[in-house]
């Protein structure tokens, strides 16, 4: 009997504290069973429900890329009951995941395009997956120029610090980190993400933009992109909403007639604009 509510068993392999505030941790999960690992075929942009028995589940974007040898990475901010329990968990803890769920970024449309990534705060997680995926030697030639603007309030709040330092040094991706206000010890860009994008003025020619960030960042970034000439269908966003089943049955995460879990979480701005702002 196939029970879509039953999670796949995994074990926490490693826990890494991502930020200075210590409320965002990256969990590396290993599948307990090889056959589960082999069939967990996902693409960047998708999410999974992380399951802690006796506590509950939470939907978290997959931060690892499918090109990263079989373990999964999830970066989780401690916010509520399940994330709190997760943060209190150590490597070796057995738990569950359900997934991959939702639609990924529109990889077919992204073939051959220039990819602009705009992100802020800890919404960057699935974009890590996207960047690692695109930069993988097996995939890099499928995409043209890759540009990323990633911002946080302060340097300590940037995720994946080692990775973004590596990316900033690579010739095959333009990676700009920025912080809101000047801080001692930071010699990188300073400025709010939408302003940095405006200043950078990336070309909209043959380009798609992936935008993931807090609502306020999105609100001010979209006009910048539209002004730069990005079409509404070419601005790609990822939504969050309170979820339970994650498979379009419990009725909770809908935005108008679409469910963030099964019809999203990835939507174009053209689609979102027509939906009620109930997310």
């Amino acid at each position: 009997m196939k029970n879509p509510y039953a999670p796949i068993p995994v074990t926490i392999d490693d826990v890494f504290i991502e930020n200075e505030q210590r409320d965002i941790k990256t969990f590396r999960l290993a599948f307990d069973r090889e056959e589960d690992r082999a069939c967990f075929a996902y693409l960047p942009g998708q999410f999974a429900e992380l399951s802690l028995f006796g506590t509950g589940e939470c939907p978290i974007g997959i931060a690892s890329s499918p090109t990263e040898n079989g373990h999964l990475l999830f970066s989780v901010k401690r916010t509520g009951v399940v994330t709190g329990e997760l943060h209190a968990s150590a490597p070796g803890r057995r738990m569950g995941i359900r997934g991959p769920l939702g639609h990924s970024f529109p990889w077919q449309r992204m073939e051959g395009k220039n990819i602009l990534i705009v992100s802020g705060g800890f919404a960057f997680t699935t974009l890590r997956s996207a960047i690692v995926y695109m930069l993988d030697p097996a995939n890099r030639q499928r995409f043209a120029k890759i540009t990323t603007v990633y911002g946080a309030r302060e340097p300590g709040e940037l995720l994946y610090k080692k990775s973004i330092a590596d990316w900033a040094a690579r010739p095959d991706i333009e990676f700009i980190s920025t912080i809101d206000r000047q801080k001692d010890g930071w010699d990188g860009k300073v400025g709010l993400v939408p302003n940095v994008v405006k200043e950078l003025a990336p070309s909209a020619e043959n380009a798609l933009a992936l935008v993931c960030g807090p609502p306020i960042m999105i609100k001010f970034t979209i006009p910048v992109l539209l002004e730069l000439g990005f079409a509404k269908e070419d601005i790609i966003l990822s939504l969050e909403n309170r979820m339970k089943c994650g498979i379009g049955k419990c009725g909770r995460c809908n935005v108008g007639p679409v469910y963030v879990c099964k019809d999203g979480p990835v939507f174009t701005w053209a689609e979102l604009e027509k939906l009620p702002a109930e997310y």
Partner: protein
Amino acid sequence: MGMDKGLLRRKDLDALISAMRATAVVYAPVRDDRGSVMFHEVDSALDVRLDGTNTLTSPKGLFFPQREILMRFSGAALTNADLPDGFFVVFGIRPCDASSLPWLDCVLCGGEQPDPYYQERRKNALVIAAACDRPGPGCFCTSVGGSPYGTAGADVLMSGAKEDDALLFEAVTEKGRQLLAANAQLFSPADAQATRGREERAEAARRSMKVMDLNGLKDKLDAGMDSPLWDSLTRTCLGCGVCAYICPACHCFDITDEKLGGDGVRVRSWDSCQFPRFTLHASGHNPRPLKKARMRQRVMHKFSYAVETAGTVFCSGCGRCVRSCPVDLDIRRILAAFKDLP
């Protein structure tokens, strides 16, 4: 080798129920000690109420119970809850309630990952609907595409025949035909008179209801998301879950874990979009913080979103939400107000 239709004398109803009980539990509307008519297990036709006002709650709980265990865990070891087993008959369900079963199927069994518990109950059930000769004043099935003699969701439709001395059984599905054939000895052939009588009764029942013209409602609703009507028409709503829980078409649910020590269960239970916490994010952000947004969601889900995704409104016109609402908030009033918008 099925049987399409037949006449059963009312006094033989007991025999039919007994025969069905040989292989299935039979649920039928009976009056309980409180005076409410509800679906309960029956062992005879004695207390079965086929006429009268519809049951207090819809029989959706027979397929989609208020509480259902989805899995059990012990430490990190997980076992799926057993599939519900045992055949059952839902006897005397009204066409309005039966018509919502295909909608529940669409959501709960749809997609690539059907809900196995709901699906199994549907598979294990035989639905024998009782046509409605006297729709109540709060009923409005004909305004939402239904009919008091509708067959959607039913395996068999029963209706009064021969001056109410008999019941005409008409098979709607193969399952229904098999049931009639299996009990052929109880039925006599349904003659032309019986069929004509049924048509007349159906027509009379349909005519007894005033029809609201809801053509074009979806477009008005879609254009009216920001209408002040959402505020003015919902101010008296108490924000309880009665309408959603009592509705045959509502199916939103919660999933929670319950544990004692290291053992526990993950359960599915009814939930309602009218509760403020339904959409509350862990961060504290609530996409529907106001009551009017939540009632708007209810109406939009049933009369707009469902039309887009399932091709039908998710309202059977049973009228229970109006009857049972503690403050008599009438969904028909909301529909009419939007329909009348220029």
